[in-house]
């Protein structure tokens, strides 16, 4: 039996998603840029998906650009924005707990001369709004903050952040990495007042290799890929048609069931946390059961048990989770997120991440916690240090 509890890493595509992908490969294999019918029928489907994505995010369909996934969407939003607007200022802001795809971009921009502010987070995983307020200046052109942190599930107060930015410097733009929030939180980009937002198909039961960037029509960005001018000239290259078909199906399912799915996730999370708290000792749960945290991510430290050993032990039982650090004697591989939250080494060392999908069941969670309990007990006996 397989108990997949690593849904923040990736999710299993649904049958409908798979069917849509297969359809694009078997029948609808035309190039959407072709002038003939074979191409036009595909172009129509792509438009349909674009409308669905814009509906899910609450924006205009012209504001959606398909990308190869979250990383490319972040690259386009940040690098593409800086490229187009470098004359406006030299200061950009992000947080210390962003995904690597954002942090690497900022580090790269730092090398090319930009002033960077990396916002601190508190011990609960929330960015410092005070620091944001203080660091915003006339020179600031871009702020990039993630919606839901992928390791602990903290939901950043995006709307509040947007308001602070607008108040301090209306010219500065706000990008949001929304890869972990879509389908887990109900929102609308226009309400959040963000200028761009990234999503990735495989985080909500779509295929890998497809994502999208919402980019406000008033925000100017330059393309990173040049070529045939696809995607409103913002992302050249023949469209990933199988990916877009699959994404369309995933978004359709998401729109139809979002509220129920979130309810399911909340119930599962409450059940999981309750079970962990009653069954296990010497644990620290970093993902609280309140609305400041996403309903699908639970980070828990099983003190004294190296997380990677727990991960591999669970994998033998068919239970798949994720760890906050890699087992290494060289002291590398610690999660930058947990470090930014100022967790102790012993805490980081033993932190595992359980991430849920609405397809998970209470039975699965019960089984997983039983196995965790078993391994915690036997491993704590062996590991004497």
């Amino acid at each position, binding site marked *: 039996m397989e108990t997949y509890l690593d849904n923040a890493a990736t999710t299993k595509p649904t049958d409908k998603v798979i069917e849509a992908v297969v359809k694009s490969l078997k029948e609808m294999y035309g190039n959407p840029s072709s002038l003939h019918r074979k191409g036009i029928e595909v172009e129509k489907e792509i438009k349909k998906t674009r409308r669905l994505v814009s509906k899910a995010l609450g924006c205009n369909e012209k504001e959606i650009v398909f990308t190869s996934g979250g990383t490319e969407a972040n690259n386009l939003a940040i690098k593409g924005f800086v490229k187009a607007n470098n004359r406006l200022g030299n200061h950009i802001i992000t947080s210390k707990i962003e995904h690597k795809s954002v942090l690497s971009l900022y580090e790269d921009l730092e090398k090319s001369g930009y002033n960077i502010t990396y916002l601190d987070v508190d011990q609960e995983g929330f960015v410092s709004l005070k620091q944001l307020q203080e660091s915003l200046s006339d020179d600031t052109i871009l702020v990039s903050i993630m919606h839901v942190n992928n390791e602990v599930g903290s939901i950043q107060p995006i709307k509040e952040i947007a308001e602070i930015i607008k108040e301090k410097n209306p010219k500065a733009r706000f990008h949001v990495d929304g890869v972990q929030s879509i389908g887990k939180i109900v929102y609308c980009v226009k309400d959040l007042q963000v200028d761009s937002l990234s999503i990735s198909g495989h985080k909500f039961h779509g295929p890998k290799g497809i994502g999208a960037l919402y980019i406000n029509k008033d925000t100017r960005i330059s393309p990173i890929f040049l070529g045939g001018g696809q995607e409103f000239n913002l992302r050249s290259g023949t469209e990933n048609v199988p990916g877009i078909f699959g994404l369309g199906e995933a978004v359709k399912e998401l729109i139809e069931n979002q509220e129920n799915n979130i309810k399911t996730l909340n119930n599962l999370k409450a059940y999981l946390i309750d079970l962990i708290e009653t069954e296990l000792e010497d644990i620290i749960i970093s993902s609280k059961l309140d609305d400041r945290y996403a309903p699908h991510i639970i980070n828990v430290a099983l003190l004294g048990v*190296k997380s*990677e*050993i727990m991960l*591999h*032990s669970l*994998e*033998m039982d068919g239970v798949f989770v994720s760890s906050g650090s*890699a*087992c*290494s*004697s*060289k002291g*590398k*591989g610690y999660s930058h997120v947990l470090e930014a939250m100022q967790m102790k080494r012993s805490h980081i060392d033993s932190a595992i991440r359980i991430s849920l999908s609405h397809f998970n069941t209470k039975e699965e969670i019960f089984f997983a916690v039983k196995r965790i309990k078993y391994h915690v007990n036997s491993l704590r006996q*062996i*590991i*004497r*240090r």
Partner: protein
Amino acid sequence: MEKVIIIRYGEIMLKGLNKSYFENKLVKHIRHALSDLGKLKVYKEHSRIYVNVEEYNENQIIERIKRVFGVVSISPAKRFPVDMENIKKVVLGELQDKLQKKVIKTFKIESKRGDKKFPMKSPEISREIGGFVLENIDSISVDVHRPDIAINVEIRNNAFVFSEKINGFGGLPLGTNGKGLLLLSGGIDSPVAGWLVAKRGVALEAIHFHSYPFTSERAKEKVIDLARMLATYCGEFKLHSINLLPIQKEINEKCPEEEMTILSRRFMMKIAERIALKSKCDALITGESIGQVASQTVNSLQVTNEAVNLPVFRPLIAMDKVDIIQIAKQINTYETSILPFEDCCTVFLPKHPVTKPKLEKILYSETLLNVEALINEAIENMDEEIIELEI
């Protein structure tokens, strides 16, 4: 005129009556290395091996042959019937060809007359060809000491013209010296040790120890990747995988903490010896090097060595790390070796391992364990996998 690759093999020449055995093995290995490149003529002639090639696959073939142990050097050459006028034209063509690719100001003709019936002596041949070149190319002059390019002319049953000599690794054809079992970890040293011994004609099998689930499956994947790289030199071989975790757990529970590593090493050696005997290997091969880590001090090596009766080859024993790294880079294993997945769990690593273990103490600690049962259990749960040659 044909394009051929001349393959020279040094040491094998000295093998007296066994010479043809070694030569035939070498031809076989070269054929095998080229087996997927279509029908190629590989043949032995006057203490050299030749491969006929075409323009389009020449470089690929050279790359493959370079990896075959026993090959000392390689020269892509033109071969044609002996005729002085023809030789001059081919040499001129070769030079003109090279002139288009790089700046050449000076040259030299080096002639060798294998066929003593040919009327001119080597210096005469060089002089005549050199003169012809000078008449035809203005921009170039002779320099016999440090020429930009040396064109070689050989007169044997055919004439050969070439200007490049590419070094192989030397050594002896694989399988001419029995078989060894390599203790292969994911580190830098053991692949190099295996490669060095294989280069002396020893066929390989490998054994790998891991501590799953205390270590990752990726650590094993890394070992398989390293084994695949070795296979590009040694052909396909068998990789045995042993889970050492149950043994480590026992040691952890019953023996002094600082002896963990040395006791584990002894278990590895003992298990390896059993597998070696079963797979008809004549020796064990390890990547140990004096003083590199606690388990590789002379005292530790002594204690480790005592665990087995088979000879243990340690080709890196007196090498410095930088030199080992250099070979690892040369044979392409370095990049993989430095990936972060660890094959041996750090949980059990003692803070202060013994560096001067006493054999009696270690033997006493082993009496606290059911060594025989632990070894048998480990071997019963062993995985085996054939590492195929993928070029």
